[in-house]
């Protein structure tokens, strides 16, 4: 359509050749100039919008759409105006050249394209389907009625839509929904809440629990439980200790202790690897005795083995052994036999009363260890270990031998100063040889079960130390460690020994202490300064009566 006004315009401008003039009336109606202007305006607007879009990155699509819609309205009005008069005109191409020639016939033809024609016939078929047979008038009427019905349906639908818009407060298509402004009260409330929320999220206000409410929960959520559980083997340790307690490390036959620290003790808890490593050096040295102490602190401690095994905290080996059938405190049978300072573990083992199957089992297990045990340099150890056995077994019992009177009284737990958490009784596996290994280990709290085993051990130690003076049974236990330990135990089993030791487990630095133990008998350890507790080890120094339980 633009061609027409231009052509007409051009026709007017130059001196007109005898061109057919438009009907003046039509021309007026067409109002070409006006149309032309409008078309030009639209063109300008569109190009402006395009430039705006291309230049700005932050264009809001709503604005652009608005502008386009304005242009669209302009175009629609122009087209409508021209349509009114377009019937009077026919479009024909001015130039026919090579480019046009192939296209023009298609453009000029009024016949529909084949596809379009097919569509048209199909539609006609659909609509006029049954009507073609009837006379035209009826056809027309029927079509009209159809149109009316459709129209009615549409208006009805539109009404429903508008009603539901009102219900949902969506407003009409062109106007936004009604805005219910928040009243001041609500605004204030919201603001208050907002401050609370922001403070809580950013600074933790109102989230801090007062100290009194910070009670340790009994049941931790699972993700925290795994995280906060004591390291490696604590849990296992606990059970081990429990087991150990019951076994009273009586099972901790010296042989067991000594032998194969690294032996794969089935009982080894997770922490055991540490213990194991520790033992190994120990094995080399006379440290076994320490193991023994740990293993069977009771054995040496004359303190009677009362209640659960005092050996709760056996050295790792013990623990491992603990896993091995727990030998309940069979002290009774033991003491008699072991206190006799049996030189070899083998002996000891043989002495194990059959009733104590567990012990037997343990011993059986450690049979192999025994030889290694015996390989340990210090023969002294053996007797000591024997003594240990005796002691441990004595705990409950008879402590017939004074030496073996384990003064571990009461609760094994007490011995350890209540710290029964000795996952690794390794602590006491620190015979002189151990310090090295021990220090290498990350002793978790249990690491130095010295405390733990200390209880029992201390008692044993005490016994040991006491006994050093006495029978030769303790020659091995002249180990500084033991003596030191014994001091501890003697002092105060529950308190002195365990207290000192309990501190230890939790700090790797404890190792040095233990090392000191080995190296500086008693002296290096201020801990060991506890005054001997005569009540606890009444038997020290004398032949022992059955330990009072």
């Amino acid at each position, binding site marked *: 359509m633009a061609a027409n006004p231009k052509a007409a315009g051009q026709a007017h401008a130059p001196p007109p050749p005898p061109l057919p003039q438009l009907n003046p009336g039509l021309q007026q109606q067409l109002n070409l100039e006006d149309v032309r202007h409008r078309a030009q305006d639209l063109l300008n607007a569109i190009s402006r919008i395009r430039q705006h879009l291309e230049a700005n990155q932050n264009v809001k699509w709503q604005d652009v759409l608005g502008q386009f819609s304005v242009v669209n309205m302009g175009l629609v009005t122009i087209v409508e105006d021209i349509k009114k008069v377009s019937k009077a005109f026919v479009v024909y191409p001015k130039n026919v050249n090579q480019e046009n020639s192939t296209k023009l016939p298609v453009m000029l033809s009024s016949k529909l394209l084949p596809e379009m024609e097919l569509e048209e016939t199909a539609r006609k078929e659909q609509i006029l389907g049954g009507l073609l047979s009837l006379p035209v008038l009826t056809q027309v009427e029927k079509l009209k009625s159809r149109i009316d019905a459709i129209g009615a349906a549409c208006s009805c639908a539109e009404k429903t839509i508008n009603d539901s818009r009102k219900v949902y407060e969506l407003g009409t*298509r062109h106007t936004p929904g009604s805005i219910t402004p928040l009243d001041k009260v609500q605004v204030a409330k919201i603001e208050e809440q907002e401050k609370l*929320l922001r403070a809580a999220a950013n600074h933790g206000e109102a989230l801090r629990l007062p100290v009194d409410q910070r009670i340790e929960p009994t049941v931790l959520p699972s993700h925290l439980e795994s995280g906060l559980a004591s390291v490696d083997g604590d849990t296992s340790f606990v059970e081990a200790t429990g087991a150990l307690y019951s076994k009273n490390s009586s099972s901790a036959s010296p042989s067991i202790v000594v032998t194969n620290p690294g032996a794969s003790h089935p009982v080894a808890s997770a922490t055991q690897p540490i213990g194991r490593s520790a033992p190994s050096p120990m094995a080399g040295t006379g440290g076994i005795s320490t193991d023994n102490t740990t293993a069977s602190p009771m054995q040496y401690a004359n303190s009677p083995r009362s209640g659960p095994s005092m050996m709760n905290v056996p050295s790792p080996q013990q623990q491992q052994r603990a896993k091995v059938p727990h030998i309940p405190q069979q002290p009774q049978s033991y003491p008699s036999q072991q206190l006799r300072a049996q030189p070899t573990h083998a002996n000891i083992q043989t002495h194990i009363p059959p009733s104590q199957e567990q012990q037997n089992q343990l011993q059986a297990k450690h049979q192999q260890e025994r030889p290694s045990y015996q390989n340990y340099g210090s023969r002294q150890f053996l007797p000591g270990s024997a003594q240990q056995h005796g002691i441990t077994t004595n705990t409950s019992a008879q402590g017939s031998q004074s030496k073996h009177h384990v003064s571990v009284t009461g609760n094994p737990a007490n011995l350890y100063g209540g710290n029964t958490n000795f996952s690794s009784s390794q602590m006491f596996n620190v015979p002189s040889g151990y310090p090295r290994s021990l220090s290498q280990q990350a002793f978790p709290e249990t690491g130095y079960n010295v405390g733990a085993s200390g209880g029992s051990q201390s008692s044993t130690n005490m016994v040991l130390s006491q006994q050093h003076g006495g029978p030769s049974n303790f020659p091995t236990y002249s180990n500084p460690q033991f003596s030191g330990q014994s001091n501890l135990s003697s002092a105060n089993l529950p308190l002195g020994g365990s207290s000192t030791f309990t501190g230890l487990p939790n700090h790797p630095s404890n190792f040095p202490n233990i090392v000191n133990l080995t190296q500086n008998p008693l002296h290096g350890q201020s801990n060991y300064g506890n005054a001997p507790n005569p009540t606890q080890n009444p038997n020290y120094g004398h032949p022992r009566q059955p330990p009072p339980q």
Partner: protein
Amino acid sequence: MKPKVEAKECIVQGIIETQHVEALEVLLQGLCGVRKEKLKVHELLLKSGTNIGTSPSEVRLLCSLEQPDPSWTVSLIGGALKGAASEQVSALVRNREDSKVSSNALRFFYALGYKLDHELLRVGFAFHIQRAVRITVSVTSVQRIPKLHAIDEAVPVTPGLQLVEVSAPSTSDNYHEAVAAISAFSEFLSPLLHLSKPGVTTGVVSTASGAAGSLISRGISKLT
């Protein structure tokens, strides 16, 4: 030697009424295209005692409880950009370092001497979208834990409001880019909520209910 470029985070926060959260979700789903990611994070803020450093430092332990295997992250949120530069940017730019840790991290920090200052639980969802930088939008209900570690008893601090955070990582050098991306994205959310620097109160959008209604309705019916 190039100095180590510090990891920073550009963040804005906003609040939205709980009733409109669904609409916001619809909007975000439409903008981001990816599925939402559910969030359930147990956040523990630990403060150090005097044994480490001269001034107390804070460490956040975040445990994501959404998956069957909880995963722990330690997060160090440091100081914010200060001065004239910070006035010009519309988001808060602060140091942030995150790292995955094992589950015994809490124990480790306790052993170091850190004490639990407070803990909270964030429950909600998050969307990630890449717009020059990776923007994370999270909508969470911040919940207080009444007893120590008793997550199951958590109650929202403000039941009627939830917290929306739009954040993007950046380095010290290019935070402008991140801030610009966040601002642009925030505009999309403007019908429903106002976003601002953390600590600046904004109030709710008064027309939010209308916008929310339209969002929800478009999702359901075909009125247009």
